[in-house]
C-alpha cells in the first residue's frame, strides 16, 4: 500500500521540489497551499505524514497544527515542519504541539527523505497500520 504524505506550503516551488524528491518512492503526495486547505485535505486523505510550512497566508502552520491536534481522528498524524524560520519561540511552540521534527531551510534532500522514512515507519509501528 502506498504511503500518503500531505505537503502544505504556500510556495509552489517547495511543493514541486517535494514532489520531485518523493517521485521515485511508493508515495502518494498531496498538496495544499495554506493551513485551511491542508486541514481539509488531512480530513479527506488521513495522511501518514504531513510536511508543514510555518509562514503561510489564510492559516499559518501553528494555527493549522492547533486545529489538527484538537481533532481526535487527526491528532496522531506525525508532522515535520519545513521552514526558513529558526526563531526559538516558534520552535518551542510547535514542539509543544507535538511536531516530530523541525527542518530549517536550506535543507539536505537526502536527510529529509531519511527523516520522513523513519517517522512514517515509527508511526506505522505505533498505530499497527
Amino acid at each position, binding site marked *: 500500500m502506498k504511503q500518503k504524505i500531505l505537503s502544505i506550503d504556500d*510556495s*509552489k516551488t517547495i511543493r514541486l521540489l517535494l514532489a*520531485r524528491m518523493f517521485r521515485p518512492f511508493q508515495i502518494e503526495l498531496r498538496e495544499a497551499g495554506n493551513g485551511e486547505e491542508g486541514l481539509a485535505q488531512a480530513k479527506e486523505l488521513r495522511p501518514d505524514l504531513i510536511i508543514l510550512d510555518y509562514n503561510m497566508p489564510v492559516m499559518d502552520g501553528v494555527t493549522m497544527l492547533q486545529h489538527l491536534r484538537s481533532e481526535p481522528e487527526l491528532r496522531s498524524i506525525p508532522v515535520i515542519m519545513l521552514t526558513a*524560520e*529558526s526563531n526559538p519561540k516558534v520552535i518551542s511552540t510547535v514542539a509543544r504541539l507535538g511536531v516530530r521534527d523541525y527542518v530549517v531551510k536550506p535543507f539536505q534532500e537526502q536527510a529529509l527523505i531519511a527523516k520522513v522514512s523513519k517517522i512514517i515507519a515509527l508511526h506505522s509501528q505505533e498505530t499497527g497500520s
Partner: protein
Amino acid sequence: MTNPLSQQELIEIANRSVPEVWRTQIKKEVQPSPILNLPIPSPRIATVAWTSSSGSGEMVLTISSAGAHSVAQNLLGTSGNGVTEETDLDDVVGELCNMVAGRVSTELRDRGLTGTLHPPVLSRTSPTGSANPPTPTLCRTHWTCGDYSFTFSIDIHPNAS
C-alpha cells in the same frame, strides 16, 4: 544606536549563506563576482523582511530571468517541471531568497539577534523604479553561477530608541 553587526560581519554571513544554499538546493557552485554594480538584465527581485525586538531589516535577492529559469531547472528537474507561468518563476526566486534569508537568520540568531522572517515580496523593479535595487546601506554581495549573475544584500537597522 549603532548597527548590531558591522558591514564586514554581514558580508561574511552572506558569503557563507549564498554558496551554501546554491550548493545544497541548486547543486551548483557560485563564485563571488569581481564585477561590481553592473545591472542585472530583466531582473526579478525578492525581498524578505526580518524583524526583531532590537531591530529590523531586509534581505534582497536580484537575479535575471534567465538565471531564474536556470535555478528552476536545477531545483525542480531538467525542464523546470511545473514552472509554466511567470508567477511560478517569481515564486522560485522568492523561495530562493527565503532559503538564503533562513540561513542568514539562523546565523543572526546564533549571534544573539533573534528575529522573525516575513514572506517574500516579489517585484521586477526596485521601490525606486530602477531595474536594480538601491545601494543598501550595509552589505551587498555579487555572484556568478555559470552564465548568470545575481546579487544578494542584507540591510539591518537597530530600532530607534
